[in-house]
Protein backbone atom coordinates (compact mmCIF):
# COMPACT_ATOMS: atom_id res chain seq x y z
CA UNK A 1 0.00 0.00 0.00
CA UNK A 2 1.31 3.43 -0.90
CA UNK A 3 1.00 5.99 1.82
CA UNK A 4 2.37 9.26 3.08
CA UNK A 5 3.35 9.38 6.72
CA UNK A 6 3.01 12.75 8.39
CA UNK A 7 6.26 13.20 10.35
CA UNK A 8 5.45 16.80 11.28
CA UNK A 9 2.07 18.41 10.52
CA UNK A 10 3.17 22.02 9.97
CA UNK A 11 0.70 24.82 10.62
CA UNK A 12 -2.51 23.77 8.92
CA UNK A 13 -2.82 21.37 6.03
CA UNK A 14 -5.79 19.38 4.80
CA UNK A 15 -6.95 17.26 1.89
CA UNK A 16 -9.31 19.14 -0.41
CA UNK A 17 -10.95 18.67 -3.79
CA UNK A 18 -13.58 20.81 -5.53
CA UNK A 19 -15.85 20.41 -2.51
CA UNK A 20 -19.30 19.01 -1.75
CA UNK A 21 -21.95 19.65 -4.28
CA UNK A 22 -25.64 18.85 -3.92
CA UNK A 23 -25.87 19.05 -0.12
CA UNK A 24 -26.28 22.80 0.36
CA UNK A 25 -30.00 22.15 0.67
CA UNK A 26 -29.24 20.35 3.95
CA UNK A 27 -27.03 23.20 5.19
CA UNK A 28 -23.72 21.49 4.35
CA UNK A 29 -20.85 23.89 3.52
CA UNK A 30 -19.20 23.39 0.12
CA UNK A 31 -15.56 23.26 1.33
CA UNK A 32 -12.91 22.42 -1.27
CA UNK A 33 -9.60 24.07 -2.16
CA UNK A 34 -9.33 27.79 -1.48
CA UNK A 35 -7.36 28.33 -4.71
CA UNK A 36 -9.01 26.38 -7.53
CA UNK A 37 -6.53 27.67 -10.09
CA UNK A 38 -3.48 26.20 -8.33
CA UNK A 39 -5.30 22.89 -7.85
CA UNK A 40 -6.21 22.77 -11.53
CA UNK A 41 -2.62 23.37 -12.59
CA UNK A 42 -1.41 20.53 -10.32
CA UNK A 43 -3.93 18.09 -11.73
CA UNK A 44 -3.44 19.09 -15.36
CA UNK A 45 0.31 18.77 -15.16
CA UNK A 46 0.05 15.40 -13.44
CA UNK A 47 -2.55 14.15 -15.91
CA UNK A 48 -5.20 13.75 -13.20
CA UNK A 49 -8.89 14.50 -13.68
CA UNK A 50 -9.66 18.03 -12.57
CA UNK A 51 -11.58 17.00 -9.43
CA UNK A 52 -8.70 14.89 -8.01
CA UNK A 53 -8.04 15.74 -4.36
CA UNK A 54 -4.81 17.56 -3.45
CA UNK A 55 -3.15 18.61 -0.20
CA UNK A 56 -3.67 22.25 0.76
CA UNK A 57 -0.71 23.52 2.79
CA UNK A 58 -0.98 26.80 4.69
CA UNK A 59 2.10 28.99 5.23
CA UNK A 60 4.27 26.47 7.06
CA UNK A 61 4.66 23.09 5.41
CA UNK A 62 4.54 19.60 6.91
CA UNK A 63 7.24 16.93 6.78
CA UNK A 64 6.07 13.95 4.75
CA UNK A 65 7.53 10.51 4.14
CA UNK A 66 6.47 8.53 1.07
CA UNK A 67 6.29 4.73 1.33
CA UNK A 68 6.26 4.14 -2.43
CA UNK A 69 7.25 5.84 -5.66
CA UNK A 70 5.08 8.67 -6.90
CA UNK A 71 4.95 11.70 -9.13
CA UNK A 72 4.09 14.91 -7.34
CA UNK A 73 3.71 18.52 -8.38
CA UNK A 74 3.37 21.66 -6.29
CA UNK A 75 1.65 24.90 -7.20
CA UNK A 76 0.44 28.06 -5.44
CA UNK A 77 2.59 29.39 -2.60
CA UNK A 78 6.33 28.73 -2.62
CA UNK A 79 7.24 27.32 0.81
CA UNK A 80 10.81 26.30 -0.18
CA UNK A 81 10.18 22.57 -0.62
CA UNK A 82 13.12 20.21 -0.14
CA UNK A 83 13.29 16.54 -1.07
CA UNK A 84 15.70 14.64 1.22
CA UNK A 85 17.26 18.05 2.06
CA UNK A 86 17.82 18.91 -1.63
CA UNK A 87 16.13 22.01 -2.98
CA UNK A 88 13.34 21.02 -5.35
CA UNK A 89 13.11 22.85 -8.69
CA UNK A 90 10.00 24.95 -9.27
CA UNK A 91 7.41 24.10 -11.89
CA UNK A 92 8.57 20.54 -12.44
CA UNK A 93 7.07 17.15 -11.77
CA UNK A 94 9.07 15.59 -8.94
CA UNK A 95 9.80 11.87 -8.99
CA UNK A 96 9.50 10.31 -5.54
CA UNK A 97 11.25 7.08 -4.56
CA UNK A 98 10.19 4.87 -1.63
CA UNK A 99 11.40 6.39 1.66
CA UNK A 100 11.80 9.93 0.29
CA UNK A 101 11.12 12.78 2.69
CA UNK A 102 9.54 16.04 1.58
CA UNK A 103 10.04 19.05 3.84
CA UNK A 104 9.30 22.73 3.58
CA UNK A 105 11.17 25.83 4.64
CA UNK A 106 10.63 29.55 4.49
CA UNK A 107 7.50 30.99 2.93
CA UNK A 108 8.74 32.96 -0.08
CA UNK A 109 5.60 33.70 -2.00
CA UNK A 110 1.83 33.36 -1.51
CA UNK A 111 0.13 31.75 1.50
CA UNK A 112 -1.28 28.37 0.44
CA UNK A 113 0.61 25.70 -1.49
CA UNK A 114 -0.99 22.74 -3.26
CA UNK A 115 0.59 19.32 -3.45
CA UNK A 116 -0.84 17.11 -6.16
CA UNK A 117 0.01 13.46 -6.64
CA UNK A 118 -0.51 11.45 -9.81
CA UNK A 119 -3.52 9.20 -9.21
CA UNK A 120 -4.63 11.24 -6.20
CA UNK A 121 -5.20 10.57 -2.51
CA UNK A 122 -7.33 7.58 -1.45
CA UNK A 123 -8.58 9.27 1.66
CA UNK A 124 -12.05 9.27 3.22
CA UNK A 125 -14.92 10.39 1.03
CA UNK A 126 -18.01 11.86 2.71
CA UNK A 127 -21.09 13.01 0.79
CA UNK A 128 -19.35 12.77 -2.55
CA UNK A 129 -16.18 14.69 -1.66
CA UNK A 130 -12.78 14.11 -0.10
CA UNK A 131 -12.61 17.65 1.27
CA UNK A 132 -11.88 17.68 4.98
CA UNK A 133 -14.28 19.67 7.13
CA UNK A 134 -14.48 19.61 10.92
CA UNK A 135 -17.46 17.65 12.18
CA UNK A 136 -18.13 16.01 8.82
CA UNK A 137 -14.95 14.12 7.99
CA UNK A 138 -13.02 12.13 10.61
CA UNK A 139 -10.04 14.46 10.23
CA UNK A 140 -9.90 18.14 9.45
CA UNK A 141 -6.16 18.88 9.56
CA UNK A 142 -2.91 16.96 9.24
CA UNK A 143 -1.73 15.41 12.49
CA UNK A 144 1.58 13.89 13.45
CA UNK A 145 1.73 10.17 12.63
CA UNK A 146 -1.23 10.25 10.28
CA UNK A 147 -1.05 7.96 7.22
CA UNK A 148 -2.49 9.21 3.94
CA UNK A 149 -3.01 6.56 1.30
CA UNK A 150 -2.40 7.45 -2.32
CA UNK A 151 -3.02 5.71 -5.61
CA UNK A 152 0.12 3.96 -6.70
CA UNK A 153 -1.40 2.06 -9.63
CA UNK A 154 -1.16 5.16 -11.80
CA UNK A 155 2.59 5.36 -11.41
CA UNK A 156 3.46 5.45 -15.06
CA UNK A 157 4.27 8.04 -17.68
CA UNK A 158 1.04 9.62 -18.73
CA UNK A 159 0.34 12.42 -21.15
CA UNK A 160 0.54 15.61 -19.22
CA UNK A 161 0.28 19.27 -19.99
CA UNK A 162 3.87 19.98 -19.07
CA UNK A 163 4.01 22.77 -21.64
CA UNK A 164 1.07 24.50 -19.95
CA UNK A 165 1.47 28.24 -19.55
CA UNK A 166 1.33 28.95 -15.84
CA UNK A 167 0.51 32.47 -14.77
CA UNK A 168 1.36 33.00 -11.10
CA UNK A 169 1.41 36.81 -10.90
CA UNK A 170 -1.79 36.74 -8.84
CA UNK A 171 0.28 35.60 -5.86
CA UNK A 172 1.63 39.16 -5.58
CA UNK A 173 -1.54 40.99 -6.58
CA UNK A 174 -3.22 43.23 -4.02
CA UNK A 175 -6.27 43.72 -6.18
CA UNK A 176 -9.24 41.51 -5.39
CA UNK A 177 -11.79 41.28 -8.17
CA UNK A 178 -15.33 41.78 -6.84
CA UNK A 179 -18.76 42.04 -8.43
CA UNK A 180 -21.44 44.18 -6.80
CA UNK A 181 -23.29 41.97 -4.28
CA UNK A 182 -27.08 41.68 -3.92
CA UNK A 183 -27.22 44.56 -1.38
CA UNK A 184 -24.57 46.74 -3.06
CA UNK A 185 -27.14 49.25 -4.31
CA UNK A 186 -28.26 49.92 -0.73
CA UNK A 187 -24.91 51.61 -0.08
CA UNK A 188 -24.67 55.39 -0.46
CA UNK A 189 -22.37 56.81 -3.17
CA UNK A 190 -19.94 57.75 -0.40
CA UNK A 191 -19.96 54.22 1.08
CA UNK A 192 -19.36 52.73 -2.36
CA UNK A 193 -16.45 55.06 -2.96
CA UNK A 194 -14.96 54.22 0.44
CA UNK A 195 -15.37 50.49 -0.26
CA UNK A 196 -13.15 50.65 -3.34
CA UNK A 197 -10.73 53.31 -2.04
CA UNK A 198 -9.91 51.74 1.32
CA UNK A 199 -6.93 49.46 1.75
CA UNK A 200 -8.15 46.58 3.89
CA UNK A 201 -5.83 44.54 6.11
CA UNK A 202 -6.47 40.82 6.53
CA UNK A 203 -7.14 40.04 10.17
CA UNK A 204 -5.26 37.27 12.02
CA UNK A 205 -8.51 35.38 12.58
CA UNK A 206 -8.85 34.69 8.85
CA UNK A 207 -9.28 31.03 7.96
CA UNK A 208 -10.98 28.69 5.49
CA UNK A 209 -14.38 29.83 6.71
CA UNK A 210 -13.88 33.58 6.29
CA UNK A 211 -11.34 36.31 5.74
CA UNK A 212 -11.94 39.19 8.13
CA UNK A 213 -10.59 42.71 7.81
CA UNK A 214 -9.46 45.25 10.38
CA UNK A 215 -10.85 48.46 8.90
CA UNK A 216 -14.42 49.65 9.46
CA UNK A 217 -16.83 51.21 7.00
CA UNK A 218 -19.62 53.49 8.06
CA UNK A 219 -22.65 51.18 8.19
CA UNK A 220 -26.28 52.23 8.45
CA UNK A 221 -27.74 49.24 6.59
CA UNK A 222 -30.43 47.11 8.18
CA UNK A 223 -29.73 43.38 8.54
CA UNK A 224 -31.40 41.33 5.79
CA UNK A 225 -33.80 38.42 6.06
CA UNK A 226 -31.60 35.29 6.21
CA UNK A 227 -30.61 34.63 2.59
CA UNK A 228 -28.19 32.51 0.53
CA UNK A 229 -24.46 33.15 0.77
CA UNK A 230 -21.71 31.41 -1.19
CA UNK A 231 -17.90 31.36 -1.03
CA UNK A 232 -16.75 34.85 -2.00
CA UNK A 233 -19.72 36.70 -0.52
CA UNK A 234 -18.51 39.84 1.28
CA UNK A 235 -20.79 40.79 4.17
CA UNK A 236 -20.97 44.12 5.97
CA UNK A 237 -21.41 43.44 9.68
CA UNK A 238 -23.19 45.80 12.12
CA UNK A 239 -19.82 47.06 13.46
CA UNK A 240 -18.84 48.12 9.93
CA UNK A 241 -16.25 45.38 9.49
CA UNK A 242 -16.21 43.35 6.31
CA UNK A 243 -16.17 39.56 6.22
CA UNK A 244 -15.32 37.73 2.99
CA UNK A 245 -16.80 34.25 3.24
CA UNK A 246 -14.54 31.45 2.07
CA UNK A 247 -14.96 27.79 1.06
CA UNK A 248 -16.04 26.43 4.46
CA UNK A 249 -18.71 29.09 4.99
CA UNK A 250 -22.29 28.42 6.07
CA UNK A 251 -24.99 28.29 3.42
CA UNK A 252 -27.09 31.23 4.63
CA UNK A 253 -26.44 34.57 6.31
CA UNK A 254 -28.21 37.65 7.59
CA UNK A 255 -25.73 40.48 6.95
CA UNK A 256 -25.95 42.65 3.84
CA UNK A 257 -24.00 41.03 0.97
CA UNK A 258 -22.28 44.05 -0.51
CA UNK A 259 -19.74 42.35 -2.79
CA UNK A 260 -19.24 39.00 -4.44
CA UNK A 261 -15.67 37.97 -5.24
CA UNK A 262 -15.05 36.39 -8.61
CA UNK A 263 -13.27 33.02 -8.69
CA UNK A 264 -10.13 35.00 -9.51
CA UNK A 265 -10.81 37.21 -6.46
CA UNK A 266 -11.20 34.17 -4.18
CA UNK A 267 -8.02 32.59 -5.54
CA UNK A 268 -6.08 35.84 -5.08
CA UNK A 269 -7.26 36.52 -1.53
CA UNK A 270 -6.51 32.87 -0.62
CA UNK A 271 -2.85 33.65 -1.23
CA UNK A 272 -2.69 36.69 1.08
CA UNK A 273 -1.08 36.42 4.52
CA UNK A 274 -2.96 37.87 7.53
CA UNK A 275 -1.58 41.39 7.95
CA UNK A 276 -1.30 42.00 4.19
CA UNK A 277 -3.30 44.77 2.51
CA UNK A 278 -5.76 44.38 -0.31
CA UNK A 279 -8.10 46.56 -2.32
CA UNK A 280 -11.37 45.55 -3.94
CA UNK A 281 -11.45 46.15 -7.69
CA UNK A 282 -14.93 46.44 -9.09
CA UNK A 283 -15.89 44.02 -11.84
CA UNK A 284 -19.22 44.25 -13.65
CA UNK A 285 -21.31 41.32 -14.79
CA UNK A 286 -21.96 41.07 -18.52
CA UNK A 287 -24.82 43.44 -19.23
CA UNK A 288 -28.23 41.75 -19.06
CA UNK A 289 -31.01 43.15 -21.22
CA UNK A 290 -34.51 42.31 -20.22
Amino acid at each position, binding site marked *: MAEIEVIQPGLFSSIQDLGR*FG*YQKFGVPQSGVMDRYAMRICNMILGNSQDTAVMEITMQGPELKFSASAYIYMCGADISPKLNSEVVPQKEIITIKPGDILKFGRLKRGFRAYLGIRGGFNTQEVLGSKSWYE*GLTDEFRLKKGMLLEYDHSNFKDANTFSSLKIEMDYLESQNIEAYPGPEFEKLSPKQKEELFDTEFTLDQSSNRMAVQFNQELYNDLEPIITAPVVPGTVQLTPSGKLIALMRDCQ*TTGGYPRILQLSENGIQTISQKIPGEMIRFRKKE*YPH*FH*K
Partner: protein
Amino acid sequence: MPDYPKISAFGDRSFLIDFGGGIGEETLKKVLFYKNILENERIKEKVEITNTYNSLLVSYELAIEDVYGEFLRLNSLFSEAKIPKNNNYKTFNVPVCYDADFGWDLDFISVRKNLRVEEIIRLHTAPVYQIYFIGFLPGFLYLGGLDPQLQISRKKTPRKLVEKGSVGIGENQTGIYPKNSPGGWQILGRSPLKLFDKNEDLPCPFSAGDKIKFFAVSREEYDRIHKEINEGNYELKFEDHHG
Protein backbone atom coordinates in the same frame (compact mmCIF):
# COMPACT_ATOMS: atom_id res chain seq x y z
CA MET B 1 -41.41 41.62 -16.91
CA PRO B 2 -42.64 42.38 -13.39
CA ASP B 3 -40.02 43.40 -10.81
CA TYR B 4 -40.03 39.96 -9.16
CA PRO B 5 -38.75 37.34 -9.44
CA LYS B 6 -35.53 39.15 -10.24
CA ILE B 7 -32.68 37.01 -11.61
CA SER B 8 -29.11 38.20 -11.17
CA ALA B 9 -25.68 36.67 -11.48
CA PHE B 10 -24.09 35.94 -8.08
CA GLY B 11 -20.37 35.37 -8.53
CA ASP B 12 -19.00 33.13 -11.28
CA ARG B 13 -20.85 30.00 -10.24
CA SER B 14 -24.41 30.96 -9.31
CA PHE B 15 -27.54 32.95 -9.96
CA LEU B 16 -29.65 34.52 -7.25
CA ILE B 17 -33.38 34.85 -7.76
CA ASP B 18 -35.01 37.39 -5.48
CA PHE B 19 -38.77 37.25 -4.89
CA GLY B 20 -39.06 40.34 -2.70
CA GLY B 21 -41.42 40.07 0.25
CA GLY B 22 -40.57 38.89 3.73
CA ILE B 23 -40.98 35.80 5.86
CA GLY B 24 -44.30 34.15 5.17
CA GLU B 25 -46.02 31.12 3.70
CA GLU B 26 -47.27 33.03 0.63
CA THR B 27 -43.73 34.05 -0.39
CA LEU B 28 -42.45 30.55 0.37
CA LYS B 29 -45.15 29.04 -1.88
CA LYS B 30 -44.05 31.28 -4.73
CA VAL B 31 -40.36 30.45 -4.14
CA LEU B 32 -41.06 26.71 -4.07
CA PHE B 33 -43.26 26.95 -7.18
CA TYR B 34 -40.34 28.33 -9.17
CA LYS B 35 -37.87 25.97 -7.51
CA ASN B 36 -40.04 23.13 -8.76
CA ILE B 37 -40.00 24.50 -12.31
CA LEU B 38 -36.20 24.64 -12.27
CA GLU B 39 -35.87 21.18 -10.77
CA ASN B 40 -38.15 19.66 -13.40
CA GLU B 41 -36.11 21.27 -16.13
CA ARG B 42 -33.09 19.29 -17.19
CA ILE B 43 -30.16 21.64 -16.93
CA LYS B 44 -27.15 20.23 -18.76
CA GLU B 45 -24.54 21.29 -16.22
CA LYS B 46 -24.54 19.94 -12.69
CA VAL B 47 -26.77 22.36 -10.81
CA GLU B 48 -28.19 22.57 -7.31
CA ILE B 49 -31.17 24.73 -6.40
CA THR B 50 -31.66 25.84 -2.83
CA ASN B 51 -34.09 28.29 -1.27
CA THR B 52 -34.38 30.61 1.69
CA TYR B 53 -37.42 32.67 2.82
CA ASN B 54 -37.54 34.81 -0.32
CA SER B 55 -34.69 33.72 -2.58
CA LEU B 56 -33.56 30.88 -4.77
CA LEU B 57 -29.90 30.09 -5.34
CA VAL B 58 -28.99 28.24 -8.53
CA SER B 59 -25.44 26.92 -8.05
CA TYR B 60 -23.24 25.39 -10.71
CA GLU B 61 -20.38 23.10 -9.81
CA LEU B 62 -17.97 24.86 -12.15
CA ALA B 63 -17.82 28.41 -13.45
CA ILE B 64 -20.73 29.24 -15.76
CA GLU B 65 -19.34 29.50 -19.28
CA ASP B 66 -22.07 31.54 -20.94
CA VAL B 67 -23.50 33.73 -18.18
CA TYR B 68 -25.72 35.75 -20.48
CA GLY B 69 -27.09 32.69 -22.29
CA GLU B 70 -27.84 30.99 -19.00
CA PHE B 71 -29.53 34.12 -17.70
CA LEU B 72 -31.79 34.25 -20.76
CA ARG B 73 -32.67 30.59 -20.35
CA LEU B 74 -33.66 31.00 -16.68
CA ASN B 75 -35.68 34.06 -17.61
CA SER B 76 -37.60 32.32 -20.36
CA LEU B 77 -38.29 29.32 -18.10
CA PHE B 78 -39.87 31.68 -15.63
CA SER B 79 -41.88 33.69 -18.10
CA GLU B 80 -43.54 30.55 -19.47
CA ALA B 81 -44.07 29.18 -15.97
CA LYS B 82 -46.52 26.30 -16.00
CA ILE B 83 -48.27 24.69 -13.07
CA PRO B 84 -45.59 22.72 -11.21
CA LYS B 85 -45.80 18.96 -11.55
CA ASN B 86 -46.10 18.42 -7.85
CA ASN B 87 -46.31 20.41 -4.70
CA ASN B 88 -46.33 17.46 -2.37
CA TYR B 89 -45.00 17.77 1.12
CA LYS B 90 -44.75 15.68 4.24
CA THR B 91 -45.74 16.46 7.81
CA PHE B 92 -43.30 14.76 10.18
CA ASN B 93 -44.11 13.89 13.77
CA VAL B 94 -41.09 14.81 15.83
CA PRO B 95 -40.78 13.47 19.39
CA VAL B 96 -39.57 15.91 22.06
CA CYS B 97 -38.95 15.15 25.71
CA TYR B 98 -39.80 18.23 27.81
CA ASP B 99 -38.38 16.62 30.95
CA ALA B 100 -36.60 18.96 33.39
CA ASP B 101 -33.31 17.16 32.59
CA PHE B 102 -33.53 18.46 29.03
CA GLY B 103 -35.72 21.55 29.35
CA TRP B 104 -33.03 23.68 30.95
CA ASP B 105 -34.93 26.94 30.59
CA LEU B 106 -38.53 25.78 31.13
CA ASP B 107 -38.65 27.33 34.62
CA PHE B 108 -37.14 30.56 33.35
CA ILE B 109 -39.67 30.78 30.50
CA SER B 110 -42.46 29.89 32.92
CA VAL B 111 -41.61 32.79 35.23
CA ARG B 112 -40.84 35.25 32.46
CA LYS B 113 -43.96 34.51 30.41
CA ASN B 114 -46.20 33.72 33.39
CA LEU B 115 -47.16 30.34 31.91
CA ARG B 116 -47.27 26.98 33.65
CA VAL B 117 -44.80 24.44 32.22
CA GLU B 118 -47.70 22.24 30.98
CA GLU B 119 -49.06 25.28 29.15
CA ILE B 120 -45.67 25.96 27.51
CA ILE B 121 -45.57 22.36 26.28
CA ARG B 122 -49.14 22.57 25.01
CA LEU B 123 -48.40 25.80 23.11
CA HIS B 124 -45.20 24.36 21.65
CA THR B 125 -46.73 21.06 20.48
CA ALA B 126 -49.95 22.60 19.08
CA PRO B 127 -48.79 24.22 15.78
CA VAL B 128 -47.82 22.55 12.53
CA TYR B 129 -44.50 24.24 11.79
CA GLN B 130 -43.43 25.10 8.27
CA ILE B 131 -39.87 24.15 7.25
CA TYR B 132 -38.75 27.15 5.24
CA PHE B 133 -35.27 25.84 4.52
CA ILE B 134 -32.23 24.16 6.08
CA GLY B 135 -29.14 26.26 6.77
CA PHE B 136 -26.73 27.63 9.38
CA LEU B 137 -25.55 24.12 10.36
CA PRO B 138 -26.04 20.81 8.52
CA GLY B 139 -29.60 19.72 9.37
CA PHE B 140 -30.70 22.96 11.06
CA LEU B 141 -34.34 23.66 10.19
CA TYR B 142 -35.63 27.20 9.82
CA LEU B 143 -39.18 26.80 11.16
CA GLY B 144 -42.13 29.17 11.04
CA GLY B 145 -45.27 29.07 13.15
CA LEU B 146 -44.20 29.62 16.75
CA ASP B 147 -47.06 30.78 18.99
CA PRO B 148 -46.42 34.47 19.78
CA GLN B 149 -47.06 33.72 23.47
CA LEU B 150 -43.81 31.72 23.48
CA GLN B 151 -41.62 34.38 21.87
CA ILE B 152 -38.71 35.11 24.17
CA SER B 153 -35.35 36.80 23.75
CA ARG B 154 -32.12 34.82 23.52
CA LYS B 155 -29.86 34.33 26.53
CA LYS B 156 -27.69 37.37 27.25
CA THR B 157 -24.64 35.11 27.36
CA PRO B 158 -24.84 32.13 25.01
CA ARG B 159 -24.12 28.73 26.53
CA LYS B 160 -20.76 27.25 25.57
CA LEU B 161 -22.40 23.91 24.89
CA VAL B 162 -25.95 23.08 23.93
CA GLU B 163 -26.49 19.33 23.52
CA LYS B 164 -27.39 17.85 20.14
CA GLY B 165 -31.16 17.47 19.76
CA SER B 166 -31.97 20.36 22.12
CA VAL B 167 -35.16 22.17 21.19
CA GLY B 168 -35.10 25.89 21.80
CA ILE B 169 -36.71 29.25 21.22
CA GLY B 170 -34.97 32.46 20.14
CA GLU B 171 -37.23 35.47 19.50
CA ASN B 172 -39.93 34.29 17.08
CA GLN B 173 -38.07 31.16 15.99
CA THR B 174 -38.03 27.65 17.34
CA GLY B 175 -35.70 24.88 16.24
CA ILE B 176 -33.58 21.87 17.04
CA TYR B 177 -29.79 21.93 17.44
CA PRO B 178 -28.54 19.27 14.99
CA LYS B 179 -25.20 18.87 16.81
CA ASN B 180 -23.47 19.92 20.00
CA SER B 181 -22.70 23.59 19.61
CA PRO B 182 -22.57 26.89 21.45
CA GLY B 183 -26.00 28.51 21.48
CA GLY B 184 -28.10 31.32 22.90
CA TRP B 185 -31.62 29.96 22.56
CA GLN B 186 -33.87 29.23 25.56
CA ILE B 187 -33.96 25.43 25.79
CA LEU B 188 -37.26 23.67 26.50
CA GLY B 189 -36.59 20.04 25.65
CA ARG B 190 -34.68 17.53 23.57
CA SER B 191 -35.52 15.37 20.59
CA PRO B 192 -33.90 11.94 20.20
CA LEU B 193 -34.00 12.28 16.38
CA LYS B 194 -30.87 12.52 14.27
CA LEU B 195 -31.36 15.62 12.17
CA PHE B 196 -28.28 14.98 10.11
CA ASP B 197 -26.42 11.74 9.43
CA LYS B 198 -23.48 12.02 7.05
CA ASN B 199 -23.46 8.25 6.51
CA GLU B 200 -26.94 8.17 4.98
CA ASP B 201 -27.51 8.69 1.25
CA LEU B 202 -30.15 11.15 2.29
CA PRO B 203 -28.34 12.76 5.24
CA CYS B 204 -31.38 14.70 6.43
CA PRO B 205 -34.96 13.37 6.24
CA PHE B 206 -36.49 16.85 5.93
CA SER B 207 -36.77 19.20 2.95
CA ALA B 208 -37.75 22.82 2.49
CA GLY B 209 -41.53 22.87 2.10
CA ASP B 210 -42.19 19.98 4.50
CA LYS B 211 -43.86 20.56 7.86
CA ILE B 212 -43.29 19.21 11.33
CA LYS B 213 -45.35 18.74 14.46
CA PHE B 214 -43.76 18.17 17.86
CA PHE B 215 -45.24 15.60 20.24
CA ALA B 216 -44.28 15.24 23.89
CA VAL B 217 -42.68 12.01 25.06
CA SER B 218 -41.70 10.89 28.56
CA ARG B 219 -38.12 10.35 29.59
CA GLU B 220 -38.62 6.56 29.24
CA GLU B 221 -39.99 6.94 25.71
CA TYR B 222 -37.12 9.28 24.86
CA ASP B 223 -34.60 6.65 25.98
CA ARG B 224 -36.42 3.92 24.06
CA ILE B 225 -36.57 5.98 20.82
CA HIS B 226 -32.96 7.00 21.25
CA LYS B 227 -31.97 3.34 21.51
CA GLU B 228 -34.09 2.39 18.49
CA ILE B 229 -32.46 5.16 16.44
CA ASN B 230 -28.98 3.97 17.35
CA GLU B 231 -29.93 0.43 16.39
CA GLY B 232 -31.49 1.67 13.15
CA ASN B 233 -34.97 0.45 14.14
CA TYR B 234 -36.84 3.71 14.55
CA GLU B 235 -39.30 4.75 11.90
CA LEU B 236 -39.90 8.48 11.71
CA LYS B 237 -43.64 8.92 11.21
CA PHE B 238 -45.05 11.32 8.66
CA GLU B 239 -48.20 12.03 6.68
CA ASP B 240 -48.01 12.58 2.94
CA HIS B 241 -49.90 15.51 1.43
CA HIS B 242 -50.57 15.66 -2.28
CA GLY B 243 -51.22 19.17 -3.45
